[in-house]
């Protein structure tokens, strides 16, 4: 009896193994079909080479490019038509590539940003020739819900995108000039804070209201020294342009990337930094009347691009901070 059971189960196990192999080879077949290869080559591939090729394909495929970009690619015609969008646009806007391509960007962007977009689309022959660069911030409709699902466009929210890129001549049938842009959301939420970044909070006029302890090791200031002072007191005069653009973007669009500017080090001298900032709305008043709801503060993550030697900073602590400013209190007599 036992022997019979065993032989039966042996037979079934053989059968099972066969099925398993079949499933496996089916998977390999699927895999090889996914590879961008000529069918003739594809049929001659053995399993290891399928794996090998799949690996190299996965490793360096286009998704890797788009993923490292943390955003999507957009090609805009001079009229604002979205000639091309990479298909990962869905992840950021909740709308698919096919839904969006061929539409005009003005239909999807905030009315207040239209003039800026239009300005960036205006191209002269010279700009096309030089491949001029573009760098601006826009608000675009996003059908994504908080849980990452696509929702109806009617309930679309505005998403801030940082568009960077350049002017390019498209080689398609008729050579037209267009804007080649990478659009990325502000990476604030998943910024991995390293030892070379510090966070700060500012009131809407850029006065420090909070500052990270790490500032001591980076720029030499203690948080107490900064709180209440304007960021502008600590910036290089020649960078005012970059800073005012940043500030305006924050006031109007609630998020911004500053670009590189110089910040005063406590002991003297400047270091190059870059800030990524967002306006944090105050949460409390959201239940009261919305009209009283005002942005609470600006949150900045600042990357220190060049470090100051710690010895220098230590030395600088011996001196007192001398940052004269015309304070309002003088005049408020």
């Amino acid at each position: 009896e036992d022997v019979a059971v065993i032989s039966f189960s042996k037979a079934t196990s053989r059968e099972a193994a066969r099925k398993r192999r079949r499933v496996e080879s089916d998977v390999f077949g699927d895999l090889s079909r996914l590879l961008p290869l000529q069918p003739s080559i594809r049929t001659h591939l053995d399993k290891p080479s399928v794996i090998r090729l799949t690996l190299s394909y996965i490793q360096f495929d286009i998704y890797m490019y788009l993923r490292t970009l943390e955003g999507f690619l957009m090609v805009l015609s001079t009229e604002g038509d979205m000639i091309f969008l990479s298909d990962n646009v869905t992840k950021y806007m909740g709308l698919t590539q096919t839904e969006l391509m061929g539409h005009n960007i003005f239909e999807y962007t905030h009315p207040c940003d239209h003039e800026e977009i239009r300005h960036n689309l205006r191209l002269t022959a010279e700009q096309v020739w030089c491949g001029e660069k573009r760098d601006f911030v826009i608000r675009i409709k996003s059908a994504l819900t908080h849980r990452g699902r696509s929702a109806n466009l009617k309930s679309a929210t505005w998403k801030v995108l940082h568009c960077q890129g350049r002017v390019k001549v498209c080689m398609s049938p008729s050579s037209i000039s267009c804007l080649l842009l990478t659009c990325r959301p502000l990476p604030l939420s998943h910024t991995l804070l390293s030892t070379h970044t510090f966070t700060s909070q500012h009131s809407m006029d850029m006065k420090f209201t909070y500052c990270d302890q790490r500032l001591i090791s980076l720029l030499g200031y203690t948080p107490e020294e900064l709180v209440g002072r304007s960021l502008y007191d600590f910036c290089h005069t020649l960078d005012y342009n970059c800073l005012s653009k940043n500030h305006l973007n924050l006031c109007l669009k609630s998020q911004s990337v500053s670009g590189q500017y110089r910040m005063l080090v406590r002991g003297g001298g400047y270091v190059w930094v870059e800030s990524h900032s967002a306006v944090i709305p105050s949460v409390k008043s959201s239940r009261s009347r919305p009209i009283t709801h005002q942005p609470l503060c600006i949150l900045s993550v600042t990357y220190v691009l060049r470090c100051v030697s710690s010895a220098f900073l230590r030395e600088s602590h011996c001196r007192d901070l001398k940052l004269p400013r015309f304070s309002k209190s003088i005049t408020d007599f």
Partner: protein
Amino acid sequence: MQAAGARRSCGGASGEPVGGDCALSSAFPPLLLSVLIAPHSATFVHVSAPSHSCCVFFPPPWRGKKKTKTRRPYSTWRLLSNLCYHHKHCLGVSRPPHPCIVVPGPSAPAPAPAMSARNAAAGGGDRAGGEPAEDVLVEEKQSSSVSLSSLMTPSSVAGMSLSMEMPRKRKGSIDNQDSKSVSILDADMDDDQNGSDGDDQHVKIKCFREPHSQIEKRRRDKMNNLIDKLSAMIPTCNPMSRKLDKLTVLRMAVQHLKSLKGSGSSFSEANYKPSFLPDEELKHLVLKAADGFLFVVGCDRGKIVFVSESVTKILNYSRAELIGQSLFDYIHPKDMGKVKEQLSASELYPRERLIDAKTGLQVQADLPVGASRLCPGARRSFFCRMKYNKISVKVEEKESQGNTSKKKESQKYCTVHCTGYMRSWPTSQMGADGEGEGDKQDSSHFSCLVAMGRVHSHSSPQVNGEVRVKPTEFVTRYAMDGKFTFVDQRATTILGYLPQELLGTSCYEYFHQDDLPHLADRHRKVLRSKEKIETNCYKFKTKYGSFVTLQSQWFSFVNPWTKEVEYIVSTNTVISHDHSRTGRSGNKSEQSSNAKASEDCKKSLPIIPGISTTPGAMIYAGSIGTQIANELLDFNRMNSSPSSGNVSPFSLPQDKSPHTHNPISNNVPNGETSDMEIPGKSSSEDEPQGAAFSGGESLMGENSQLDLDSVVGPGLSSLSNDEAAMAVIMSLLETDTNLGEAVDFEEMHWSL
């Protein structure tokens, strides 16, 4: 104790070839089988929870064939090895296993009570009190399976059959589970469909109800428009001047696309992912748009595994030069630590924090310890300086001068913004590349950073900024009251003062008395103007008591939020160096006119407030600036509504404040003269800025330096001020700050 025994026997089982189903089952007393089943059923209740140090995962064949008994040998074997793995980890970790593992007991086959695996093991042990010890069990298993089965006790047989039936008994719940997941999938698909439906809805997004015919007409027009565009793009359509019907155009389009694809070599017809652009081209576009290069760097030694071709354009190194090298050889020595920190996958740095942009709070990572860094997909974003290859320059030098000593000249670096993510590959697969096997880690995974290195357009401003300023120029910055808040280092060579000597003092202390009225006037002007104000030539007292003649260009920087003057920037040009107190050599005409002007002004000196009342008395010059600043503040206070102290962009347009006398300026002040350009900002870049903000400025109302009417966006011009202000608030609120967990705007149901 029991658990330890189970682990041992399992170890044996996984190590041995398993003869047959019965033999295997018989080798295990019910207690073990119940434990064996436990992770299995756990698979179906999805115990891949984070608290588990391991996830019990079963290969698809098991799930697919769960109805047939024939899968058992294979799957049982799987099960065993998994169990071992499972146990090893469960027992290695001090905390109890996930409580949701469902363990059926012989006494209560279904519904199974929820117990921890270890409890189950203990419980099973109680039941199987009469069983031989585990050591014996292992030995028995190693001998013939037939004899083993004959040795089985009745209780173990009962236990076995029970366990065997487990899959079937649980089938209902399994199917439930499966169907549930299927339904989730369905829901997802539905969502997608909704998303595509949204396309049409967006057209109506801002419209009120319209007559149907109108909507239809618009749709038709749009369609025709698209067809027209299409026909314009297709070469075969062009020669025929008469308009083609839709169908023909579409057919031709199909034909055209086919021909295009036929010519493309990389195209394969069965390509799973049809895309509008070939991947290669898309990659190229991405790199081009990003102005960057892709690189893959091993985490352990920083070896460059891959770098895209575009690196040549950015760092001037060829791809072949870099691949296989250590990334650290190409990084600024001072940035080494920074990069190492980003690459280190092994440790959880105490400083690592994530930030929640909506609340501004720093979130302590609640990921399992160590996992956040290690886990593939962890994002990275950092800046570092990378070497720029200057070889071409050196070659030229060699050719022209035959001089190699210049090799030591300073290395040039590019500031590269790296964004990317961590990723790991099994080393066995990496071995195919023939490299990197040497660095096998204990985890046998090769983890690396995949990142895009971007060089921003404004990345090399320091070169422009400092080189372009002429040596006879220096920049200073004053607070509203004329006190120095910033002094360019070049000032020292011209004026003799160290920056810290000047900081905090009023510029009026250094002006020649003759020039005071003129400069005070200009000061007053610059505070109320958005334009650059040129001063006449004036004399500035150096440290040595002599005077240097300067001419300055002033402009005020206004805080975009408060609309208050933050500071005054002054670009000072040296006209002549004069060591005699009174002598005026160069620029005769200028000087004389200046002198006349100042003489004129001398008479009108009493105009200066604060001085006027006390003629003849020696007045502290610094107070002039304070006076002027206060004057402006008082003026603002009087002119604007009570809220002037804290003007926000939300405040509605008030009567035009001080700047009405400057309506011409149409741009944001460009700030700099032609020979002193702001780094990285060409004038053309300023323009969009000015224009862009105009829409917003119009909402903000007062103090706008822009001529709003000319540039107000069409979207807003039709709105009333209230609506416009509301729109700004709305946009601020609605803007998704890119957070995972959000403060819910959903809570605020307020209609527009």
